[in-house]
């Protein structure tokens, strides 16, 4: 199964998502993000530019482990009594889009 989804954001930006299960190699080993000013390739927690040069993201956060960062955010929000990034309210639009796509595909 191959799939392509085109989305237009509220600011007019067009996003194209292309997925292929015909790609040789393990599923989902990398994602290529093609933007209007640059291309980035994400391989798990590592980041490369379009020329396959590694980008140092080691100082971006306290850990290179995405799950640890996610858990840190959860615990920090509890301690600080605030809404976390990726709160259920913040991510609800994802599920609205999913539902909309689902309806259209019947």
């Amino acid at each position: 199964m191959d799939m392509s989804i085109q989305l237009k954001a509220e600011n007019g930006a067009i996003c194209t998502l292309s997925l292929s299960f015909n790609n040789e190699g393990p599923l989902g080993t990398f994602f290529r993000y093609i933007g209007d000013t640059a291309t980035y390739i994400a391989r798990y927690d590592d980041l490369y530019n379009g020329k396959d040069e590694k980008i140092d993201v080691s100082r971006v956060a306290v850990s290179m482990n995405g799950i640890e960062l996610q858990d840190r955010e959860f615990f920090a929000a509890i301690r600080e009594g605030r809404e976390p990034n990726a709160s259920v309210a913040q991510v609800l639009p994802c599920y609205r889009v999913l539902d909309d796509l689902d309806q259209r595909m019947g």
Partner: protein
Amino acid sequence: MTKTLKVALAGAGAFGLRHLDAIKEIDGVETISLIGRELDKTKEAAAKYGVGHVTTDLADTLKLPGLDAVILATPTQMHAAQALQCLKAGKHVQIEIPLADSLKDAEAVVAEQKKTGLVAMAGHTRRAPAYLEGRIPYSAAGRADLFLPPHQHERAGPATLLDRSSALASRRAHG
């Protein structure tokens, strides 16, 4: 020293264990209960990580004194119901992706969160870290916050793939 947060983890599969590994690295947080479908395997994991309480029923865990929060790394179809169960028991909850397998259920979780005022967070990994806090320049951050959680790569399937696209769309729409 601030009070130690007491957390429970539901789902002792490969992904749940990654949360246990992560929590070990975080000061002031203790995993006090592990909930799994198979008691033997769950006990084994609990012993390895030094977790004192093991059960196959989330309701048992929710009765534990001092419990602050639950992380749900259970199968998708259980997410929304368990999230509601945790919130109704007065516990903060983090739900691994996807939050729910229907819009209606996702909305129900959001409604309960608003009612209780507790922290309810979805495991959209790349929305959590510093990319969103302006610690790296926009030229990179504008792209970086579109990155998908690495663990999603391991769960290929139409639903999660759609989730990726919609997460991306959401970021674009609100970025």
